């Protein structure tokens, strides 16, 4: 197993494994970088709702393909279906919460429940279809990088890179929007469009990650690397690239591990690597880490005791 892991991580495992590792890393890079803005704009729960609302779309796309005689495992088709219902879910959450009709968190919990509920119900319809390939759908729930085709990996790679480029171009407007939306609007930024762009990018990254990470854990790669980076720096211009690198590393490692042990779901492996990195930052981050905090507290206590004694 160690040998297989080494092969996967050093890109010496053959063309297909190389491309899959590359696609996963690109997804991790985009998810980590975009995740910073998702987090700072307070959209982490929306991202999770969107991810869960992809399941009905995946199933509907599969059913449609089966009915039309197309290949029901075509990744672009499944991604399209997933993005469509995820967008519907996000818009529904927005509409439910508008004007204070419902609290934001309640609206998002509702979308998660409805989206995932319909999805699971549709899965049983899919199982009863007289075509093959149903088992492939389950890899969209927990994620399975192993067995991905090179063409699928390239699709993920380019989609992630496009999202990353958009984040780079919109960096400054998104930063101002996340810090102070009213100021941004008063200064002439099209705040509504920017928020839509942020949601669109979030959807793109979500569907890019579905195949490898799975819909349940895809939000982890948007939230965890960004939170890790936030612990480690006080600068957005450091936080975004750092989160991207952390995400890319986690996805790369996770894909490698799951290539070495195909019974491990890739999504779980990637999420656990990301969480391990977070734990390291939580303990050892220079200013915000637990250790630094404890040391600072001890020093302050000692100083206070010295002053009390000399007084």
């Amino acid at each position, binding site marked *: 197993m160690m040998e297989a892991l080494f092969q996967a991580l050093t890109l010496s495992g053959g063309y297909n494994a190389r491309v899959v590792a590359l696609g996963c890393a690109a997804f991790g890079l985009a998810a980590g970088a975009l995740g910073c803005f998702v987090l*700072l704009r307070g959209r982490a729960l929306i991202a999770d709702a969107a991810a869960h609302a992809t399941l009905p779309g995946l199933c509907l796309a599969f059913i449609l393909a089966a009915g039309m005689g197309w290949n029901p495992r075509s990744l672009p088709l499944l991604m399209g279906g997933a993005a469509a219902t995820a967008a519907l879910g996000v818009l529904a959450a927005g509409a439910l919460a508008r*004007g*204070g009709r419902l609290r934001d968190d309640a609206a998002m919990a509702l979308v998660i429940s409805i989206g995932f509920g319909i999805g699971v119900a549709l899965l049983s319809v899919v199982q009863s279809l007289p075509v093959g390939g149903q088992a492939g759908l389950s890899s969209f729930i927990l994620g399975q990088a192993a067995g991905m085709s090179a063409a699928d990996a390239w699709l993920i790679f380019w989609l992630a890179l496009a999202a990353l480029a958009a984040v780079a*171009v919109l960096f*400054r*407007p998104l*930063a*101002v929007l*996340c*810090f*102070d939306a*009213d*100021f941004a*609007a*008063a*200064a*002439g*930024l099209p705040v509504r469009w920017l928020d839509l762009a942020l949601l669109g990018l979030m959807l793109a990254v979500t569907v890019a990650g579905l195949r490898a990470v799975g819909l349940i854990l895809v939000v982890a790669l948007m939230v965890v690397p960004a939170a890790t980076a*936030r612990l480690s*720096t*006080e*600068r*957005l211009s450091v*936080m975004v690239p750092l989160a991207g690198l952390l995400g890319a590393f986690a996805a790369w490692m996770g894909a490698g591990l799951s290539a070495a042990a195909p019974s491990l779901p890739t999504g779980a492996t990637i999420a656990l690597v990301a969480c391990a990195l977070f734990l390291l930052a939580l303990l050892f981050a220079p200013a915000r880490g637990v250790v630094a905090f404890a040391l600072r507290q001890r020093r302050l206590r000692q100083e206070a005791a010295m002053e009390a004694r000399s007084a």
Partner: protein
Amino acid sequence: MSIAPPALEVRNLSVAYREAPVLRGVNWRAPASGLTAIVGPNGAGKSTLLKAALGLVPRLAGEVRFFGQELRQARRRIGYLPQRASVDWDFPATALQVAAMGRYPRVGWFLPLPRAERERARAALAEVGMADFAGRQIGQLSGGQQQRVFLARALALEADLYLMDEPFAGVDAATERAIIDVLHRLGREGRAVIAVHHDLATAPQYFQHVCLLNGGVVAAGPMETTFTAENLSRTYGGRLSLLDEAALRPAAAPPAGRPLRAVP
């Protein structure tokens, strides 16, 4: 008044959030320059008036003109200072980076900020006495210092009209002094400042004009003739406390040349 169009003109403005309207048919012409306070009880719609004028909250009816122009045409001439509590100060940015946000509308949102522009942001920080904190993360600043950073960002906009939402809320005496110095500089340069203000005792000392607001405009005009006990009691509907009235008595008719309230 001169022929210059009012810095802000509001006609028949109505705004509602959920049920009852917050503002009902507001008509007001703010002077073309100088410092104007918007004064009124809680829930009078003071902040809403600023936000509705800037298009940040939808309006039911009414028109807004800045210097005789639509918001779209006049946007570059307007600077907005939101309430300090409206943003998350844990945001990963330094004081200088926040001040530099005030330069983006002029420089463009996509290109890196040229050195000269960063220096302008730094100069704005210096004017509010925050030059030494340029590299500090904004969450590590005190409330008063955060308010000054907000003011520096507004100054960096180099606007002709500033709309400020409670610029003095929750700040220490030194910050209040620094802010009022900046406001007076803006007034001397012929710019207009419209600020939501809560402290009835200091309003007549800090501002030249006043708009008394409670759902609609109760009275508006020069401070000396408008800021009267009678107009105030009409604005506050008898809810003015004894303390407030005591504070008002000397202030209602300020002697000429009276110095600002002593602040260290």
